[in-house]
């Protein structure tokens, strides 16, 4: 008899604990309507001040010109912060990102989805969803090649339109959705050229378009000129997108996952094309992808991002031969490689922290298998292992190096 009652008791206790557990868990993710409205009020104030600054008329050119740190760079990201002000809190999508894109080189940006790599490139194009998305701090310096340098976040819309698509152009991930289905291929490329070169007449524009289509390896350029996007295969559409991006001789091409939606054989074609074109037109490429193989093949410099920050950057050689940050190492180990069989794939434990409530210590600490006491301190500083190889991890700091090995 007593046995049964004991059992019952423990059952009740168990249930109580579970209920408590559930309530706590709910609380962590729960925001009351009152809180939401106060957050949105606060956000409106911040966002309005940014928008007011942006909407001014007759902004002096001196306000957005600046000087490059190194004139051989096309773009310099300097401590960029891009935040999204949402009703449940501020999402720090890009939180202090600095790296350079040198003239004629390819810079690869790697990271998982949601790490801020696309937002970084959109900030450069001023295409971040406004008004909730704002570049709150930092500079993006763009070298126009004519001796002038602009600070992109401060540029007014009409000036930015002269740069966007003209000097900086972008190739998007989905060639299916980024072409307009109701216009012919020729008309869509013509539009870009006409807009940025108003002095050209119709015949010249048409000639240029056909030239572009031939450049990207489309054999039947005349035929494709009169086709609609649905008549082309995925690889062909991506070629058209690349042709469109190149049509104004940009100084920088941003390729946002250009081959993710394509098959391996088509991917090889497109990568080959991009590599050849880069030599031909001498532009720089900012290549965004999560495929380490693609990066290794294309990039001269590599930037590894995690949760809105750069965890490691360096030349492709440094990153692939001596990956230093535990995240980079984990990323490389978790990708199965051909002709290198392992019993079990390494997988990084845990998941990316919630972007609204970021911890104040190293963002990767909770998932890191090499964390030690120091990691609970503030976010690790940038540590340079060589002139070009930077890593943010306490394992490599001078004063704590010894402790780790013990």
């Amino acid at each position, binding site marked *: 008899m007593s046995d049964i009652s004991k059992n019952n008791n423990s059952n009740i206790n168990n249930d109580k604990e579970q209920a408590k557990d559930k309530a706590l868990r709910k609380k962590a993710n729960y925001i009351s309507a009152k809180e939401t409205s106060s957050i949105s009020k606060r956000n409106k104030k911040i966002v309005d001040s940014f928008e007011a600054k942006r909407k001014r008329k007759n902004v002096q050119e001196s306000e957005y010109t600046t000087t490059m740190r190194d004139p051989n760079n096309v773009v310099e990201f300097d401590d960029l912060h891009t935040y999204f002000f949402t009703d449940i809190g501020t999402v720090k999508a890009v939180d202090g990102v600095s790296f350079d894109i040198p003239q004629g080189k390819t810079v690869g940006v790697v990271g998982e989805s949601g790490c801020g790599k696309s937002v970084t490139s959109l900030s450069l194009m001023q295409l971040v969803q406004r008004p909730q998305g704002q570049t709150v701090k930092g500079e993006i310096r763009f070298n126009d090649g004519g001796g002038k340098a602009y600070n992109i976040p401060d540029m007014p819309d009409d000036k930015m339109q002269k740069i966007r698509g003209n000097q900086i152009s972008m190739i998007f991930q989905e060639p299916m959705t980024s072409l307009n289905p109701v216009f012919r291929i020729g008309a869509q490329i013509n539009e870009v050229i006409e807009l940025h070169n108003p002095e050209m007449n119709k015949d010249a524009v048409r000639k240029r378009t056909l030239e572009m289509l031939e450049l990207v390896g489309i054999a039947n350029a005349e035929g494709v000129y009169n086709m609609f996007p649905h008549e082309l295969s995925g690889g062909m559409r991506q070629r058209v997108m690349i042709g469109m991006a190149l049509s104004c001789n940009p100084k920088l091409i941003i390729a946002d996952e250009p081959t993710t939606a394509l098959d*391996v054989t088509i991917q090889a074609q497109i990568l080959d094309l991009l590599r050849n074109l880069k030599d031909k037109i001498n532009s720089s490429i900012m290549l965004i992808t999560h495929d380490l193989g693609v990066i290794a093949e294309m990039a001269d410099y590599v930037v590894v991002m995690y949760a809105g920050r750069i965890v490691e950057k360096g030349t492709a050689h440094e990153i692939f031969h001596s990956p230093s940050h535990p995240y980079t190492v984990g990323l490389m180990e978790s990708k199965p490689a051909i002709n290198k069989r392992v019993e079990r794939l390494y997988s990084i434990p845990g998941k990316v922290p919630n972007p609204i409530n970021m911890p104040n210590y190293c963002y990767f600490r909770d998932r890191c298998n090499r964390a030690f006491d120091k990691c609970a301190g503030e976010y690790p500083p940038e540590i340079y292992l060589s002139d070009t190889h930077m890593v943010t991890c306490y394992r490599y700091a001078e004063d704590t190096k010894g402790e780790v090995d013990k």
Partner: protein
Amino acid sequence: MSENTNLLSVKNLKKYFPIKSGLLGGQKGAVKAVDGVSFDIPKGKTLGLVGESGCGKTTIGKTILRLHDKTEGEVVFDGVDIHSLSREELRKIRPRIQIIFQDPYSSLSPRMPIGEIIGEAVREHGIVPKEQFDDYITKIMRDCGLQEYHKDRYPHEFSGGQRQRICIARALALNPDFIVCDEPVSALDVSIQAQIINLLEDLQDKYNLTYLFISHDLSVVEHISDSVGVMYLGSLVEFAETDAIFGKPLHPYTQALFSAIPVPDPDIKMDRVILEGSIPSPANPPKGCKFHTRCRYAMDVCKVEPPRTIEVDPGHKVVCHLYDEEIMKNKENEK
């Protein structure tokens, strides 16, 4: 190999989709999505199917499950031809063959809580008695790395990797012998991919599952499969043990496919075989060898005569004239 060790054997399977046109819907032609495919999968093993998009990988998966009706051929599962079963018999065998779809975002009903998604078919098929139902679902969820309190949540509250775990749990709950994994990791991030692949492997060991693993990612296929079939335009062009095919790819298409994989090492500059053009239309495939339009070794005979299946090494089959001794001898004689 005796018939008994193979859990599933597919014999000369064909699936054509009719092309209809005009007011009366007269048949104009057919898309030959799967055109004469044969393979066996022994119990407890994994077969990987690779190929470009549009080569018929998914159609094979669906035809095996009889989500599509076959046009010709046989699908024998554990001694029974699936396509000859009546509705009632098919319903009985369905729990033993499950599928995991590619996109975890669109394959879960947004209006159902997770417990219901996983449990619906369990209840329907009476896998466990009513009183054990709750415990059973919890156990399956634990096996797949989900927590008990997830039961009352809805799919939108989960990340991509967790949703894929739910899809796996749903398939596993019916206690299947065979699972078709249709690109289960393509939509996921690299680090999540590794978690899901490890999970699939663990479950295979634990429950002695047999997988048909469909993917276009060759490195994943190499990792998980025991044998690999390479498809091109609805037909298998090469079939072998994983080590054999990755060590010594024979078919020109397989070679091109393998050399197209980017290697994560900047110092290795691959001697790349780049295929020109794209895959021809399966409604009107080229005559002779289907691959001759893109093949760099194409000979005259390839344009006329379809190649035979040749067993180069034991278990390593390739469909190509280059390995057909008769044809190669004729060719040398002509010279």
